[in-house]
């Protein structure tokens, strides 16, 4: 098995480098977490503030949910990283089927 990360010859330097990279990634994670909390707050406030019409609030909070899920998938679940091509393909395919299913149940079900 190849150890592609041991390429500088000096393992210590590599570890330092990786630590730094991991720490930086973790900082990004915390930022995306903060954004997610922020989006959630907006969604709750938009609903709590009863002046807005439902025609505005519903699409708006759905959009916020969509953005938040993108954060989860791409940052928390690392889908933005290399080596996630097949997971991406299958998640997108699942989302297409999911979308069609929900579309059907909100349009052509007898009411």
């Amino acid at each position, binding site marked *: 098995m190849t150890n592609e990360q041991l390429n500088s010859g000096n393992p210590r330097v590599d570890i330092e480098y990786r630590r730094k990279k991991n720490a930086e990634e973790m900082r990004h994670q915390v930022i995306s977490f903060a954004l997610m909390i922020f989006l959630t707050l907006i969604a709750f406030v938009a609903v709590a503030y009863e002046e807005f019409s439902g025609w505005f609030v519903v699409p708006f909070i759905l959009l916020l949910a969509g953005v938040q899920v993108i954060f989860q998938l791409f940052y928390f679940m690392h889908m933005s990283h290399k080596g996630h091509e*097949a997971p991406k393909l*299958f998640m997108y*395919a*699942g989302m*297409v*089927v999911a979308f*069609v*299913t929900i579309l*059907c*149940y909100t*349009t*052509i*079900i*007898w009411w």
Partner: protein
Amino acid sequence: MSTIAQKKGFGATLWDYLTTVDHKKIAHLYLIAGGFFFLVGGLEALFIRIQLLKPNNDFVSAGFFNEILTMHGTTMIFLAAMPLVFAFMNAIMPLQIGARDVAFPFLNALGFWLFLFGGIFLNLSWFMGGAPDAGWTSYASLSITSEGHGIDFYALGLQIAGLGTLIGGINFLVTIINMRAPGMTYMRMPMFTWTTFIVSALILFAFPPLTVGLFLMTFDRMFGANFFDAAMGGNTIIWEHFFWIFGHPEVYILILPAFGIFSEIFAIFSRKRLFGYSSMVFATVLIGFLGFMVWAHHMFTTGLGPIANSIFAVATMAIAVPTGIKIFNWLFTMWGGSIRFTTPMLWAIAFIPSFIMGGVTGVMLGSASQDYQYHDTYFVVAHFHYVIVGGVVFALFAGAHLYWPKMFGTMLNEFLGKITFVLFFVGFHMTFFIQHFLGLWGMPRRVFTYLPGQGFETSNVISSIGAFLMAAGVIVLLVNVVITSVKNEKVGNDPWEDGRTLEWALPSPPPYYNFKQLPLVRGLDAYWLEKMDGKKGMTPAEPIGDIHMPNNSFIPFTISLGLFIAAFGAMFHGDEGNTWGVPVLIFGLLFTLGSMFVRSIKDDHGYHIPKKELLDDKDLGGKA
């Protein structure tokens, strides 16, 4: 662990199969179990045809007829066709991509045992108060009011079996993506592997809606929920949509592997490369995609409205395009080839006109306005038997004859194989061709009898005689299996002599580690390329080394057994005065969870076959 096969006692063999994680043995299990259910479903079909032999027949009662026709459909689709397709996928696909094993041997075994326990559970209904009787589609308004436990058996049995199928699908997907031999790029994969891949993706996305639908049905019937009860705010159409969102991809799940098997057969017995390989791959992917967009064509008369009906009608007809591409590619593969009329090739050639007939009636039915005329008549029955029998079952027979030597090391008798073919082929067209006309003349499907003087008599007699011819064909096949198994004349690597793909480079049956050295794949039809270069076998891609193998395990059996037990608890807990239902339900679920827990905490690293042992058994082959 010795590799030398010793004569084992019955007990040891049984234990070996109960605990096996070897994809080739799991394929045997799928073949045996699926074959058994195929015979059961066939017997039910015969009962149907005997009952309809003459007007006002009283061979079976009306209620019993409903049970038979429901179980015939359910058994044939879920317990016969799917497992038999899985048998070939398990037996052949890992060999075709040059893998030593599947990605998840443990889950592969789990998938089989879940299917088997689900199938047994469903069929126990015959002995425990009546089978399901609302048709294989089990539409909610009917199935909710059905008395007794028949529908409960349906919902719980299919739930367990469906879980197994889903697991099997994920296993195949990962196997194909991660376990291909060096040089086996996606566009060098044999067609059967490609169809396995697409089918597994369809399973992954089609089974969850069925799971949910079955859960809703279970909750409604056994736990007091109201999903389908209009009086409580429920909506019966929810079931219908879930069933067909699953059900339509399901028919592609069945037919695509059939296309894969036929693609292999046409190439082998025309001694030609498959014509238009890349367009075949493209057509398969396209069929898989479109398969999810057309489910409501089963529901044209439900009243979805003209817009929805039009969209689904257009999408349905679009599927004829990729299917047509495939048909022409098969014809062009044969064109100018040096054709050998072996048994598998006969099935393949017969498949083309038979399947086209089913396809053409499919386009007719796909036209929404016309569908109002055909709906619920024998025309529909004729259509789907033409695609499923003329497509899938033909492929299963063809595949059985083609891959029998690879799975069991001996050839089925060609003469008897051809007799099977003739009997079944003639019987099939006799049974179902006339049913198109019965439908057009107005005979409704699923009726247990009809009156004299409506012009249905002669046609029904013809249809029933055809059914018996098909049964005779199957019996000849069984005789063939027994005879060849008793004779057991061993054959070499490439018994058809024109094998093109990697599985024919291996001994028949292959050693349990498949490839001693992983092969180097230099193009499509890897083995054929080497043969044309005058080589005897594949060029190895690695030196001989230790081979890592998974350990056998009994846990897949116990996980499935737990769900089997739990299903009884769920089913009977609502009966009057029942006290053991809930405890049994909880016990069964804990049994399953406990088995999973044991699996989780017990490390299982597998074992290694040492290099020395591999060098020693020269004659076991496995040299790539």
